[in-house]
């Protein structure tokens, strides 16, 4: 059933999509320019016999080395008195045919091999992969030169061989697309419906690979023209046949007598290649990129940040005197077009006192992590803080970048969600812990190591000396999370921001890590913002809790009151759903 549906959809979508791609291509000024230039070259190639002022290789001794723009010779004439414009025009057809040959051979070979290898895998894939590796590790031009010794001056054979040599680019592309399409459901569905393999390939896979193949072809044609001009330039072309590269070679040999002769063929070859590459780039943007540009204009970003800053300085800080950290009216947005920002945190207030463990719960996408990142000043580059303040003992971190940098790591520590991806894979555990500690504490490497060894033991790592010498991939997820906790508390911060610290861990390890966090908090008087979607964790560990929904805090209370007497409808549903999960898990 689903196969039928997807087929019908694609059948009706095709013409519309094709037209819109063309329209968008021509709407882009660069796309328009390149298309026009390439079309112009093709027209020149096709109508050469009608427009060329002279016959191929027609020499006129009176025009030897004629300068550009002299009468009868717009681009001048070469040392044999041949009209440069005519020679280039007569060479256009050969260039176009050559690149067409490259494209046809490379596409037929590469796409076929890619389809077979991607669909049947096994031996076919292994052999094709090896051949691809070998062919791609050879410089094509060297082989084409070797080929000349065998075939003599025959550019078309050289281009055919070049087609074989570049076919791996299509092979890799098609194979990877096939693999991804293959794993998608609708191929399975089609198999169930009873379509044969060949029809499955024809219908679905070819449809999926068409866009990347078209884009790739633009680049392959460009390299085809470059290599053809290069082969001709080296003198491996047919001297009887006018060509772009041949004209350039001739002009280069004559550069001391007629220095401007090289300009025309060089420009023609370069512009054609450049047009093809830019055309391919525009095509890729049009066919693969999302409908509109999500980047925010620089000026707009600056205005937004300035507005937020001036609001901050004019507003009176109404922060809770007893709180260690006070977030007031925090607004965070992400770019959604050159002028637009999509707000994900809508003016949120939050207070954390010393030693208090504050839970921040909500569904994914509710803005919890954005709040955590804002507190530490580690939001992604594209994020915009649209307003609000974050006071650390009365000092606004958002108003003062230096204060924020000084607090980060020293006074506020960070425990991430995914332990393995949060350790630098290229450095040993010990090295990165020492770097981190020495970045915030004036201490010798030796002392730092001593301190960290003690702390690693404290967070429950046996044989810490050995662990310090290991790389992140050599330890387990639970161990990695203990290492990250050690890194967060090493500098003796007063507040820890923990972003889902147990989500990625096994259930047994989860309980141990929570216990560790509780102990560290009591021992060191640590305040903590614990971001989680798990109400069980909140009940277990937190003193107070805020419930977030769609970028707003909908309810806040101490844990006991919230669990016993939820005020908001949303909190009630959240509690109910977590209880039903507990029931099914138990």
């Amino acid at each position, binding site marked *: 059933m689903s196969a039928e549906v997807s087929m019908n959809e694609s059948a009706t979508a095709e013409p519309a999509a094709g037209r819109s791609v063309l329209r968008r291509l021509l709407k882009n000024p660069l796309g328009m320019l390149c298309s026009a230039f390439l079309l112009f070259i093709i027209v020149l190639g096709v109508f050469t016999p009608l427009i060329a002022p002279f016959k191929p290789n027609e020499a006129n001794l009176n025009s030897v080395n004629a300068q550009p723009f002299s009468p009868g010779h717009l681009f001048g004439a070469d040392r044999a008195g041949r009209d440069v414009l005519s020679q280039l025009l007569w060479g256009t057809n050969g260039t176009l045919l050559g690149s067409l040959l490259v494209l046809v051979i490379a596409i037929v070979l590469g796409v076929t091999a890619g389809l077979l290898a991607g669909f049947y895998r096994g031996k076919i894939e292994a052999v094709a992969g090896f051949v691809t590796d*070998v062919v791609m*590790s*050879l*410089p*094509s*031009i*060297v*082989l084409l*030169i*070797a*080929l*000349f*010794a*065998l075939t003599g001056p025959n550019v078309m054979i050289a281009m055919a061989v070049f087609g074989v040599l570049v076919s791996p680019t299509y092979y890799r592309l098609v194979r990877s697309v096939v693999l991804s399409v293959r794993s998608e459901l609708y191929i399975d569905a089609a198999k169930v419906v009873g379509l044969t393999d060949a029809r499955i390939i024809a219908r679905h896979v070819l449809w999926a690979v068409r866009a990347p193949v078209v884009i790739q072809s633009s680049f392959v044609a*460009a390299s085809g023209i470059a290599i053809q*001009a*290069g082969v001709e*330039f*080296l*003198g*491996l072309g047919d001297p009887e046949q006018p060509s772009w590269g041949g004209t*350039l070679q001739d002009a*280069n040999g004559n*550069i*001391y007598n007629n*220095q401007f002769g*090289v300009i025309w063929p*060089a420009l023609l*070859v*370069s512009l054609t*290649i*450049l047009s093809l*590459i830019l055309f391919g*780039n525009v095509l890729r943007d049009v066919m693969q990129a999302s409908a509109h540009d999500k980047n925010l204009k620089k000026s707009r970003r600056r205005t937004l940040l300035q507005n937020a800053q001036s609001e901050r300085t004019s507003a009176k800080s109404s922060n809770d005197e007893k709180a260690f950290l006070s977030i007031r009216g925090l607004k965070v947005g992400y770019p959604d077009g050159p002028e637009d920002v999509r707000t994900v945190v809508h003016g949120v207030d939050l207070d954390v006192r010393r030693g208090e463990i504050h839970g921040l719960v909500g569904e994914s996408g509710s803005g919890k992590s954005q709040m955590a*990142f804002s507190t*530490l000043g*580690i939001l992604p*580059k594209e994020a915009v803080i649209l307003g609000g303040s974050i006071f650390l003992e009365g000092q606004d971190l958002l108003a003062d970048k230096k204060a924020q940098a000084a607090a*980060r*790591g020293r006074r506020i*520590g*960070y425990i*991430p969600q995914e332990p393995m*991806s*949060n*350790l*630098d*894979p*290229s*450095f040993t555990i010990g090295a*990165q812990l020492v*770097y*981190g500690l020495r*970045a*915030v504490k004036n201490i010798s490497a030796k002392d730092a190591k001593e301190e960290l060894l003690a702390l690693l033991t404290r967070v429950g790592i046996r044989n810490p000396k050995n662990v310090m010498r290991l*790389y992140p*991939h*050599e330890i387990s997820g639970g161990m990695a999370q203990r290492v990250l906790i050690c*890194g*967060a508390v090493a500098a003796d911060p007063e507040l820890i921001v923990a972003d889902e610290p147990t989500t990625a861990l096994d259930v047994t390890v989860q309980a141990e890590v929570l216990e560790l966090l509780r102990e560290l908090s009591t021992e060191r008087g640590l305040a903590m913002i614990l971001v989680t979607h798990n109400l069980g964790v909140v009940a277990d560990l937190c003193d107070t809790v805020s419930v977030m929904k769609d970028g707003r805090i909908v309810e806040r209370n101490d844990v006991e009151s919230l669990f016993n007497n939820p005020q908001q409808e949303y909190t009630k549903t959240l509690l109910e759903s977590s209880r039903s999960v507990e029931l099914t898990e138990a």
Partner: protein
Amino acid sequence: MLSVLKNLIRSVAILLLVTFATFCLMFGNGTGIARSILGYQAAEVDVQQKVIELGLDRPLLTQFGDWIAHAVTGNLGESFFTGQTVTSALATRVPVTLTLIVLTLILTVIFSVLLGVAAAVYGGWLDKVLQFISVLGAAIPPFIIAIALIFTFAISVRLLPATGYVSPDQSVTGWIMSITLPIAALLIGSVASAASQFRGAVLDALSKDYVRTLRARGLKESRVIFRHVLRNAGGPGLTVLSLQTLGLLGGAIFVEQVMALPGMGQMANQSAQQGDVPMVMGTVVVTIIIVLCVNLLSDFANTILNPKARTR
């Protein structure tokens, strides 16, 4: 250690395979070779005699076995025309090309790392300008860049010699002058493509979770970039460089041709046009050996850079 050995065996297999294929292609047409040596007007009898004289009438496998047996002792045969041994010809040619490529690679690393990091970290107009120049520089073939450089620096402003090579034994300044334009011609395209790929590697490393965590620990941005991001972008960067070497080997042929440098690309081209098959064969084999060595080196360097590959 085991993986290095495995790579080595694989490389030797590829070398033999490609050598054999090239040999078959080049020596497959014995009469053709003889005719191109004697000229197309030569009598059939003379051609046949030449074929026998050069041993081209023997079965291809015998010829190949013979060639390989000599090749492992360092004897790659003799030129059909000058009688010079291929090995001695290569001995003077390969250093010129390798100098060109190695110097270009070193400069490529310096420039593309600086530009790639700058573009990735600062973004904005710098990034846009770099990307535009990258497209331009990578698109224009090396022989056109070489001609443009000659046009500008050797003919319009007579600053540097347009063609020719001065050995460093004769004159060091002369040597530097003679290789400046060729290196520049190779460097432009090479930096253009390497910088934009390196920019991608840096952006990729910058987007990793551990970078955010390192920042959250209070590390200075410069430390994060120069110690952690650069180190992690190093692996992909090496791959870029080994691919770049391949491009440079091809590009050097054109640059040697345009600027009349006595390198191995020029030798390959001239020999091919004369039909001097043993000389062409020699340059092809040396090129493949260079490529395979570069791949081995980059694999090896990658195992040093990447702790995961090291312990495997």
